[in-house]
């Protein structure tokens, strides 16, 4: 073994930032190369098309806030995040490619963090412009309407990372991340948190509304949590990421021997 060779393979001090960038890049390439991504892009475009149709029809509904809540916050946002969040980690665990990442001398949280970041970023990349376009088409270009649209867009941007974290954690914890994630978004976020007052502290939809209400012109969005939405969203991201890292560090291969 030559001296040069030793040097080239020297177990360098592991640079975790480099490692996370590397994992993030591979994750992003994997997600963008899937056919599902195109479908989910079309799905995110649906509210925009709806806004366009409303525009072309000539009517302009007065209530922008409920439209954005219904079209974006409680449907497009969680479902886009579900697809990216479960695919970022879950599909790699399912098809076995994750083994090549897991069997490396890196702490498991350094695998989880780039997965969360990529899932959240890709979700935001689709949902943020969709929110702005939908808002402008439905609400028009009045100062108040633009303020409301951007308030929702920023809230949705942060919400993308909360949902992304939740779905990455779900797929680290269970092999049925997609199904459980779907049930969670429909039952918990969709039905319960709307009906039961006490559950709103644990509803991402409520956090997004809270953040939007803080940023929007006075009185245009009603929210229970209000500006606490920011804090709660941050706490949710941190807690859920920790859970994801813990679950991944105890990850057992789902062997079919």
């Amino acid at each position, binding site marked *: 073994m030559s001296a040069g060779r030793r040097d*080239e393979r020297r177990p360098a001090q592991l640079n975790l930032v480099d490692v996370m960038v590397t994992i993030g890049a591979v994750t992003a390439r994997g997600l963008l190369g899937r056919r599902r991504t195109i479908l989910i892009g079309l799905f995110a475009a649906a509210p925009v098309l709806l806004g366009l149709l409303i525009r072309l029809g000539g009517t302009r509904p007065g209530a922008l806030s409920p439209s954005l809540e219904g079209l974006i916050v409680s449907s497009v946002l969680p479902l886009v995040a579900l697809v990216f969040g479960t695919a970022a980690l879950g599909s790699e665990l399912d098809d076995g490619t994750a*083994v090549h*990442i*897991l*069997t490396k*001398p890196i702490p498991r949280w350094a695998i989880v963090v780039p997965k969360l970041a990529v899932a959240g970023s890709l979700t935001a990349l689709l949902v943020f412009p969709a929110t702005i376009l939908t808002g402008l088409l439905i609400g028009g270009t009045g100062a108040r309407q633009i303020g409301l649209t951007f308030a929702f867009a920023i809230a949705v941007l942060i919400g993308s990372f909360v949902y992304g974290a939740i779905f990455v954690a779900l797929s680290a914890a269970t092999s049925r991340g997609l199904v459980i994630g779907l049930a969670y978004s429909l039952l918990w976020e969709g039905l319960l948190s709307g009906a039961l007052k006490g559950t709103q502290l644990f509803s991402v939809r409520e956090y997004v509304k809270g953040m939007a209400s803080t940023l929007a012109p006075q009185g245009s969005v009603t929210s229970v949590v209000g500006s606490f939405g920011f804090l709660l969203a941050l706490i949710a991201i941190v807690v859920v990421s920790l859970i994801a890292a813990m679950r991944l560090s105890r990850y057992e*291969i789902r*062997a079919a*021997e």
Partner: protein
Amino acid sequence: MAALPAEGADGAGGDVGARVADGAADAVRRAPAGPSMPIAQLAVVDPSQPIVLDRVSRWYGNVVAVNDISFSLGAGITGLLGPNGAGKSTLLHLLAGLLRPSAGRVLIGGRPAWREPSIYREIGLVPEREAVHAFLTGRAFVELAARLQGLADPVAAAARTIATVDMAGAADRAVGTYSKGMRQRIKIAAALVHEPPILLLDEPFNGMDPRQRLHMMDLLRSMATRGRTILFSSHILEEVERLADGILVIYAGRLAAAGDFREIRRLMTDRPHTFRVRSSDDRRLASAFMAEPAVFGSELRDERLTVRVSEFSGFTRIVARVARDAGVRLFEVAPTDDSLESVFEYLVTRRAGGRR
């Protein structure tokens, strides 16, 4: 009780990689029927070896995948032989820290493998599943492994390892376009890129053509001579025979035999056998066999003659002579239970106290 095929049972077994402590062998031998049997002795393994399994079991619910296995491995190539579903992959996953042992200890370089990512500096794992990020080129895939290992020059390290597995020509194609054998080789390159002292390979020769197989065997051999500890699983006897210094036979989650290959080969061929014989006069042949000490019994039923013998080679030596002396022409002599499965089963029950 028959001699154990463990270390030292054969005079030429000095360089054997697999080493089963006498205590471990005893434990296996004394636990015939099920996990409920008391195990009289604690297994003793050499904890200074790079790979140590100390009375390791792994179960899924009620299903026992790995059952109280102890061994330690040092430098050299060890073959993990067993039929599909015997627990080979489970064992390798336990060693690679991808499964938590339900009982016992798995040590890699003296450290517990479970929840200890630092062992991956010392381990290269080649999983059985083909899955590789299909959109990456072979080179990008190996460089990814090099980066995640924190190598100083991942590009150069990857190029060198790719050349080692003879994949330089195809390295810039997407992995998705590779054949099975090519995927296998690029996975091996990725596992080797940090030159780990321990290499674990799950069915590494699956899908390789004969030339690739020979090349890979040469490569593994040369790595073993440089002091690496290599453990590979296979369900193919010939692969293990050609490559391995030592052998671990696993069947139904138990360590059925361990040690030198020739010893195990002898055990496999010298076990009781049953043959089906067709001849010009089965009845006369049957009574002629009865006079032979190597034959336990012969039975003629539905015009089919089956002969039970004490050992394979003894019978094959006498069968022609017996037929000639009796004036009977032989049409066919075929062993009836020569599946690898029955061989493994025999080894397990034999170690369980000769219940057959």
